[in-house]
């Protein structure tokens, strides 16, 4: 009952579903007005590749590696710095740890 309660709630799934259902029905009717026919299993359904012959699905598969490329490219400096920091030498990590503890101690000391 608390969900349906008309006091404030961050998200009411019931009303959300209700509204979605209405909108979906409307979108469905809109969609149904469209032309549904197309020429199945003809040359028409082949993907557009600048007019070239379409290679096999395997060849045009793009590996997931490429998906976040733009993101990596932007954050390159950040990642590079991070990778540099991770030297794999345990002494470095311990120094990081000690420095951080020292800094937090100072902050705690000042604030406290």
């Amino acid at each position, binding site marked *: 009952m608390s969900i349906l309660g008309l006091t404030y709630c961050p998200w009411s799934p019931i009303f959300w579903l209700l509204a979605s259902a209405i909108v979906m029905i409307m979108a469905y009717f809109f969609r149904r007005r469209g032309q549904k026919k197309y020429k199945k299993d*003809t*040359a028409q359904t*082949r993907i*557009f590749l*600048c*007019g070239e*012959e379409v290679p096999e699905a395997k060849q045009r598969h793009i590996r997931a590696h490429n998906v976040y490329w733009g993101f990596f490219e932007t954050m390159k400096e950040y990642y590079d710095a991070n990778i540099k920091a991770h030297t794999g030498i345990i002494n470095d990590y311990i120094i990081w740890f000690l420095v951080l503890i020292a800094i937090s101690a100072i902050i705690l000391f000042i604030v406290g």
Partner: protein
Amino acid sequence: MSLNTIKRALWAYHINTGSCNGCDIEILAVLTPRYDVERFGIRLVGSPRHADVLLVTGPVARQMAPRLKRVYEQTPDPKVVIVVGSCGLEGGVFYESYNLVGPVDQIIPVDVYVPGCPPRPEAIIEAVAKAWVKLEQAEKQGVT
């Protein structure tokens, strides 16, 4: 389905099948402020899937023929094909060359021909108007 609905929102896709570029720049010129065909709802789109009009230029070089056919097939119906420029009509100065398989209407069905080498932008607009008339007549006769 109504052909009339298509008439005033023609999206065009431009295919060069080996033309000399003259017609292509005139097609681009048609979009620019002086002629501005966007006022008729025409705009150039990036994919034949979105297109209603194929603007074909050039005499169809051997390598381009299968590609032209493919793109024509990939364009959803109903569609209009306008051939711009004399070499797309009849080969123009390139007639009888060994590497041509055109003109365009031997590869795909053509609706409107625009002679000119290259045609003035207004002639291309007139061709669009001819295409409207054709669509309206087809609508009247109940052709889909």
